[in-house]
């Protein structure tokens, strides 16, 4: 008979029927949700609208933010923009600003939003090629202009709102006169990637990113007037390599230009890039005035102060920097946004700035202490990424539920396990992460609940299924086939039980990882910074591993010699070995490392620090492992030695062929243990400037005052190394124990 399933009708416990129904409902609803979501249906997890452009009215009473859904959110600031009160932001203390929403286009992102200098008109451009203007106090629609170009990947407005620069999908730049409703210039397509377009305040110049360079054209003639591209400080050197050799500076971007701005005084143009730098160029010469580093990811948006002396930049590292154009030093960093920054603006006075981004919030910051003083949501909700993740999860959940349902119908164990795995792991990962993130929002508890209730409901539903699955009648039903032979039933039951424990185990691990992740998020970690330096620190893990591996080889050799000495009847060998162990175990490892490091050069022995590190670690661990080897050798029974001797083997042959292999099998687990300890103690050789994980984490952490971030990366890699090694160790032990298998 088929062990795992038969098609005979059995009387089903009512609880099992309930489970079927519940899983069937889950499958249906999940798939329906996913289908209507992708068809643009009305039911969706409430997510924020990503803000793509931002402007403040000249009198400082209106804030306009164009979002990704073709709407411009408009806040009226009756009491004026707060200028900071020298304290941390508290939601409860703040009155929300009155808000209204203006619609533009069919739901494509609003790339540019601007108030005219007289404050009477608001103009906005959407990605589907619509330009609208509204009369400010009452927001009656003034004009609407449908551009001939319908798919814009970026757009910019001149300060007076008259000229619109639009970047086509094929890289063509069109300049339109909004008032005359006509195209004034078109600059042909490009093979290079053009991500961003900008137009100067009076609409006479237009600029666009061109790969790692940027080009500036005259709007009237369509002629290229300037190219901003990398060059060497030394005029005769044309390549980066030659420039480096002469120790001159190679000025320019390494990666695509992703943000552009003309200075109000017409002297400079600023470019931001995916290489995280901002560069100020002289518009008339194309030479670099200054450059600025400090973002840890792509620079996404920028704006000059009115006097052209300062600049605000926002990046995909969720940070906003205020920097001085002369010299490029930042004067302030504003941290707190939950996603990429898409709009920055100076407040009506020097005391405040306004920022907005993909996290759907508009934030007002006090410049002096970088406190958040006001926060508005374009719409309350989760981050858009979570909404997409949830929908993907719904598809997976729906399909897997159907499969599981098929398994359940035929009482197959895999159906049962699939349901269990699905409904334990799913909520933990897909619902756990966004739920924990909601907790970090600067909102009142009730508002958080308002945002997160669908997730909580869903989690509760899944947990309900899991509880149902673990009820005894259901579990019994799926553990074994009641008609099978008893021995088969027991075997299947045991296996099912084991797999189920495995699933629970994985779920608990992942759950704890999610909690760990959210706890770490609470530290306000600079994720973009971590991403930027991940590779550099990761390279240290190779060094950590091979330093540890070579050290353990040396330690094993020394431990073997030491153990033989300890076991020897020769008083010299015995005492020498005892002395070695006593000396090494009696002094701290760190002190030994310093002595190796400082002492060897005095003997005119200048070793590579890695070699010195391996010597220090190997000698130290050799002493500790001597005892392990001694115990291992002694644990081989006397009978083995006698048997070998009776066969005529001499001492060396006996040791080499009989004792050592058996001793090794005994000491492999403790050696593995020591190796794991050593991988972590190898962090101490960072004081010798061995460029392993800890050294790198320390160096970068100190340089940028981001020790927490770098050490978390290092810790993660130590952990990964340890886990990998444990897997390896299991294999090795299995191999060494081949004679013990039954």
């Amino acid at each position, binding site marked *: 008979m088929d062990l795992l399933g038969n098609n005979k009708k059995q009387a089903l416990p009512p609880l099992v029927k309930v489970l079927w129904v519940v899983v069937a409902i889950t499958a249906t609803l999940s798939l329906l949700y996913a289908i209507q979501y992708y068809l643009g249906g009305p039911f969706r997890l409430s997510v924020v609208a990503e803000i793509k452009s931002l402007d403040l009215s000249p009198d400082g009473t209106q804030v306009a933010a164009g979002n990704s859904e073709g709407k411009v959110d408009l806040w009226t600031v009756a009491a004026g923009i707060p200028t900071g009160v020298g304290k941390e932001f508290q939601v409860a203390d703040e009155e929300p600003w009155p808000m209204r929403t203006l619609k533009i286009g069919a739901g494509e992102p609003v790339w540019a939003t601007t108030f005219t200098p007289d404050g009477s008109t608001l103009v906005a451009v959407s990605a589907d090629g619509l330009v609208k203007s509204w009369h400010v106090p009452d927001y009656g629609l003034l004009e609407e202009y449908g551009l001939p170009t319908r798919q814009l990947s970026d757009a910019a407005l001149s300060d007076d709102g008259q000229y619109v620069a639009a970047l086509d999908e094929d890289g063509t730049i069109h300049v339109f006169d909004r008032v005359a409703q006509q195209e004034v210039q078109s600059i042909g397509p490009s093979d290079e990637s053009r991500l961003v377009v900008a137009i100067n305040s009076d609409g006479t110049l237009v600029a666009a990113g061109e790969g790692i360079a940027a080009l500036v054209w005259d709007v009237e003639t369509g002629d290229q007037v300037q190219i901003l591209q990398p060059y060497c400080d030394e005029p005769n050197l044309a390549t980066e390599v030659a420039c480096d050799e002469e120790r001159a500076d190679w000025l320019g971007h390494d990666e695509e230009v992703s943000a552009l701005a003309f200075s109000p005084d017409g002297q400079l143009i600023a470019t931001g890039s995916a290489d995280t730098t901002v560069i100020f160029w002289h518009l008339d010469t194309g030479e670099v005035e200054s450059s600025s580093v400090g973002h840890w990811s792509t620079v996404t948006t920028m704006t000059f102060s009115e006097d052209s002396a300062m600049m605000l930049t926002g990046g995909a590292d969720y940070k906003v920097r205020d920097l001085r154009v002369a010299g490029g030093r930042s004067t302030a960093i504003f941290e707190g946004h939950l996603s990429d920054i898409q709009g920055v603006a100076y407040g009506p006075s020097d005391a405040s700035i306004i920022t907005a981004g993909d996290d759907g919030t508009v934030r007002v910051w006090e410049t002096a202490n970088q406190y958040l003083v006001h926060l508005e949501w374009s719409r309350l909700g989760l981050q858009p990424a979570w909404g997409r993740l949830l929908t993907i999860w719904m598809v997976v959940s729906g399909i897997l539920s159907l499969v599981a349902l098929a398994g359940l119908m035929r009482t197959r164990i895999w159906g049962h396990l699939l349901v269990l795995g699905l409904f334990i792991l799913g909520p933990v990962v897909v619902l756990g992460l966004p739920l924990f993130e909601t907790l970090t929002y600067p909102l009142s508890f009730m508002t958080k609940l308002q945002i997160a209730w669908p997730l909580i409901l869903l989690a509760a539903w899944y947990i309900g299924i899991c509880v149902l699955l673990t009820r005894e009648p259901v579990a019994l039903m799926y553990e074994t086939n009641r008609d099978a032979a008893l021995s088969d039933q027991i075997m299947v039951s045991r296996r099912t039980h084991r797999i189920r424990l495995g699933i629970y185990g994985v779920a608990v691990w992942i759950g704890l990882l999610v909690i760990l992740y959210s706890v770490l998020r609470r530290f306000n970690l600079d994720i973009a910074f971590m991403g930027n330096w991940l590779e550099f620190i990761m390279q240290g893990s190779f060094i950590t591993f091979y330093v540890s591996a070579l050290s353990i080889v040396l330690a094993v050799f020394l431990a073997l010699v030491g153990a033989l000495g300890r076991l020897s009847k020769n008083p010299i060998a015995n005492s020498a070995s005892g002395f070695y162990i006593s000396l090494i175990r009696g002094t701290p490892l760190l002190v030994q490392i310093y002595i190796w490091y400082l002492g060897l050069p005095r003997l005119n022995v200048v070793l590579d620090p890695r070699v010195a590190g391996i010597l220090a670690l190997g000698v130290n661990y050799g002493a500790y492992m001597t005892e392990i080897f001694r115990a291992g050798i002694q644990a081989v*029974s006397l*009978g*083995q030695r*006698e*048997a*070998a*001797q*009776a*066969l*005529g*083997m*001499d001492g060396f*042959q006996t040791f080499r*062929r*009989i004792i050592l*292999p*058996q001793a090794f*099998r005994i000491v492999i687990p403790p050696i593995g243990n020591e190796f794991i300890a050593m991988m972590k103690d190898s962090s101490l050789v960072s004081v010798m400037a061995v460029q392993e994980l800890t050294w790198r984490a320390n160096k970068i952490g100190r340089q940028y005052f981001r020790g927490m971030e770098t050490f978390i990366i290092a810790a993660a890699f130590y952990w990964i190394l340890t886990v990998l090694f444990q897997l390896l160790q299991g294999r090795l032990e299995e191999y060494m124990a*081949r*004679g*013990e*298998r*039954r």
Partner: protein
Amino acid sequence: MTEVISTPKQDQGEPIIRVRGLHKYFGALHVIKGVDLDVAPGEVVVVIGPSGGGKSTFLRCLNFLEEPSAGSIEIDGVVIKAREPAREQRRHIREIRQKAGMVFQQFNLFPHMTALGNIIEAPVTVKGVSKSEATEKAEELLEWVGLSEKRDEYPSRLSGGQQQRVAIARALCMEPKIMLFDEPTSALDPELIGEVTDVMERLANEGMTMAVVTHELHFARDVADRVILMADGVWAEVAPPQELFDNPKEERTKQFLAHIL
């Protein structure tokens, strides 16, 4: 089979084992109190006696796993005296160990080697026999002890009786002149004893000189040429088996037999 287990072709009158005045102390404890023994080639000598009587110690002294405190031992013409100069003694020990195979109560197979590996280990490392030659001989021996199909098994997967038979084959592969058995069946379950004693009996029939310490009186009666009852470190009685079992002369022998029969 004769080419596998070499039978001594000596004059039957010349003993192959000659023990003179053997004493053994463990600290102050006098375990063997001066015994003499001559064993002729092809003879099977079984030592029985109460526990603690020194039987095993005596046997282990024969190949110097225990160093005798006084006396001399000659095996196949190699003489070792107790308290010889160390270097000379070491050379002699090596020589007699190659002439005397030994089988232990606890089998003492090497657990990290297969049955075949156990058997060829000593010929290859000690005698320098080529691996293929040793393997050929080992396979013959495995067949002789009836374990051909177990050649690649590790000892942990063999029963006690099978392990002991591998141990016998291992000792034989060194082509010894004599075989020493130290309670070879004591660690075995009763139903497994037969398979080991059968092998020993066949070995005896092929003319191997054997010294056996055992509690298997049936084996002693059926196979031994001479039985020695050892008690309190001396020979209590030495006689052919029928005589010793059916018609013991000494009081100590009667006591012992009364005790275990």
